[in-house]
C-alpha cells in the first residue's frame, strides 16, 4: 500500500475514526508514516496554540433582539444592486437618465400649464451631451425633499406591500434562464420641491464660464413640486451568489418588474412657453431631443421616456391594451418595456429578449 498522504495524516490527527481500517492499519505498521504523522501532529498542535482566541460569551437572546430592531435594509440598497456600483457605466447612465427625466418633466409641466399627471408614455431620444446639458439644470435652484425616498430591500411580497401599499405584480411565467429567486424593493411616496433661483443660475453660469440662456422673467422663486411613488419592484436573480460580504461579488439581477404610481407635478409662477424654450435652448441639447419634446401631442399627460440613443433602441408597442415604450432587442443582452395603465407606471427590464419582456408584460397581473 502507498504511504498515507499529508492530508490523510492531518485528518487522522483530528478525526482518528474517520478513516477506514486500511489507513489505520497502514499507520500502525509503517515507520515512515508514523514519523510523518508525528510531524503533522506536532505542527497541528503548534498552530492550534497560535489560533487560540479569548473566550467569547454571547447572549443570544439580546443579540437576536438587536438584529430584529436593526435599521431597515435601506442603506444596503446602494451596493446590493450592481447597477448602483460606483464607477460603472450603467450607474452613470442611470443617474443621468433620472436627471434627464426630471428635467423633461419640467418641460412637460411647462407645456401643460401647471399640472402634469401622465397617463401614457412616449420615447424621446437623448444623447450623452443632452444628459450633460440637462444635468446642469439642477444647479439652477434648490431641491428639498418634503418626503424623502426611502427604498428598502425586503424578502417578501407582504413586506413590500406594507411599505408601499402596492401589491407586487404577479409574474405568470419567467423567461427561460431567469432565476426564480426574488428580492423585493419598495418605497413609500417621495415628494421633492425644486425652487428656481436666478442668483444660483447666474452663479453656475459664472462658474462654468458658459454662456447660458437668460432665465425667463418671473421664474425666480418659482417652485416645482414632484411626487414620485409609492413604488414596488421585484428583482429576480441570485444577488448574492457567493458567501461573504464582498460587495463586488454580488450577482447581477436578471429581471426587474416594477410598479409605481405615476409621478405628479405641480408648479407655481411658471411661464409655459418660455420655460420650454428656455430648457431646450440649453447649450448641448440636441435638435433631435428638442424636436421630440416639441412633437409630444399632449405633454400634460405624456411621460417622456429618455432613451440613450448611443446605447439603446426604442420603439412604441402595445402592452396590456395601452401604448408602451420598448427598449432593446431580441439578442438577450438587455430589453425593457414601460407603460402606464390606470394611473400606475409599470416596467419590466432585464437581460432577456425583448419578445420575452413584452410577453411577460402582457401577462402581468
Amino acid at each position, binding site marked *: 500500500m502507498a504511504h498515507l498522504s499529508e*492530508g490523510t495524516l492531518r485528518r487522522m490527527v*483530528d*478525526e482518528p475514526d474517520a478513516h477506514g481500517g486500511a489507513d489505520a492499519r497502514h499507520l500502525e505498521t509503517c515507520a515512515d508514516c508514523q514519523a510523518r504523522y508525528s510531524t503533522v501532529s506536532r505542527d497541528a498542535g503548534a*498552530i492550534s496554540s497560535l489560533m487560540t482566541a479569548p473566550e467569547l460569551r454571547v447572549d443570544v437572546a439580546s443579540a437576536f433582539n438587536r438584529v430584529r430592531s436593526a435599521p431597515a435594509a435601506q442603506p444596503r440598497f446602494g451596493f446590493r444592486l450592481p447597477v448602483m456600483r460606483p464607477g460603472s457605466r450603467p450607474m452613470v447612465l442611470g443617474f443621468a437618465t433620472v436627471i434627464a427625466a426630471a428635467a423633461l418633466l419640467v418641460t412637460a409641466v411647462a407645456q401643460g400649464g401647471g399640472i402634469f399627471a401622465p397617463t401614457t408614455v412616449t420615447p424621446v431620444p437623448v444623447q450623452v451631451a443632452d444628459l450633460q446639458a440637462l444635468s446642469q439644470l439642477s444647479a439652477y435652484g434648490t431641491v428639498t425633499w418634503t418626503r424623502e425616498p426611502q427604498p428598502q430591500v425586503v424578502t417578501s411580497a407582504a413586506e413590500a406591500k406594507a411599505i408601499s401599499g402596492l401589491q407586487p405584480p404577479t409574474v405568470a411565467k419567467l423567461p427561460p434562464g431567469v432565476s426564480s429567486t426574488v428580492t423585493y424593493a419598495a418605497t413609500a411616496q417621495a415628494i421633492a420641491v425644486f425652487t428656481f433661483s436666478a442668483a444660483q443660475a447666474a452663479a453656475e453660469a459664472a462658474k462654468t464660464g458658459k454662456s447660458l440662456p437668460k432665465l425667463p422673467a418671473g421664474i425666480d422663486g418659482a417652485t416645482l413640486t414632484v411626487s414620485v411613488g409609492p413604488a414596488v419592484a421585484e428583482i429576480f436573480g441570485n444577488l448574492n451568489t457567493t458567501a461573504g460580504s464582498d460587495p463586488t461579488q454580488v450577482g447581477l439581477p436578471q429581471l426587474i418588474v416594477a410598479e409605481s404610481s405615476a409621478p405628479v407635478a405641480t408648479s407655481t409662477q411658471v411661464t409655459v412657453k418660455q420655460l420650454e424654450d428656455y430648457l431646450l435652448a440649453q447649450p448641448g441639447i440636441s435638435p433631435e431631443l428638442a424636436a421630440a419634446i416639441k412633437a409630444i401631442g399632449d405633454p400634460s399627460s405624456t411621460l417622456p421616456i429618455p432613451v440613450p440613443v448611443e446605447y439603446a433602441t426604442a420603439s412604441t408597442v402595445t402592452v396590456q391594451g395601452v401604448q408602451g415604450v420598448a427598449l432593446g432587442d431580441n439578442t438577450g443582452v438587455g430589453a425593457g418595456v414601460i407603460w402606464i395603465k390606470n394611473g400606475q407606471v409599470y416596467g419590466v427590464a432585464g437581460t432577456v429578449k425583448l419578445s420575452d419582456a413584452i410577453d411577460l408584460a402582457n401577462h402581468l397581473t
Partner: protein
Amino acid sequence: MASVRPDDESFEALFTAEYARVAGIANRVLMDQHEAEDVAQEVFMDFHRLHSASAQYAPAWLHRAAAHAALNRLRGSRRRLRREVAQATQESDRIADPQKVYEVSEDRRQVRQALARMAPKPAAVLVLRASGLSYAEVAQALGVGIGQVGTLLRRAEAALRKEVTSGTSF
C-alpha cells in the same frame, strides 16, 4: 420598520442555533467580542435579506460568510494594531505574570497579521477548523470535497507558519 420579521420563526431558530458559532468564527479572527458580534449580526442580516432561513445550506453559508467578513474586516483595520498594543500593556499591568500576557497578545497580533496577508481560502480553512467545525462542516462551508480538507488544512498551516515567521508588520 424592522429588517427581521418578528413572526419569522425559522429565522429565529436558525439564529439561536448558529449565533454562538458564527460569532465564535469571527472572534477567532478578530479576537474582540464586540467586533465579532458586529460581524455575526451583519452576516445574519445579510443572510436573512436574501435567503430562506429553512435553506439546507444556511449553516454552511453563515460559517463561510463569518470567516470571510471577519477576515475582510481584519484586512481593512490598521488601527487595530495600535489598540492591541495598548490593550496588551494594560493587561500586563494588572495581571500576575505581565510578561506572559504580553507574549500571548503579541502572538495573537502576529497571527492576525499573518491571516490578513494569507489568501482567503487557506485563511478560512484555518479559522473554521480552529473554531471547532468538523471536516464535513468545513467542506460544506467552503464548497470542497471532505477529502480535500486535510490537504487544504495542512497547506494552510504551513502557510501560516511561514507568514508568522516572516513577521512583517502591516
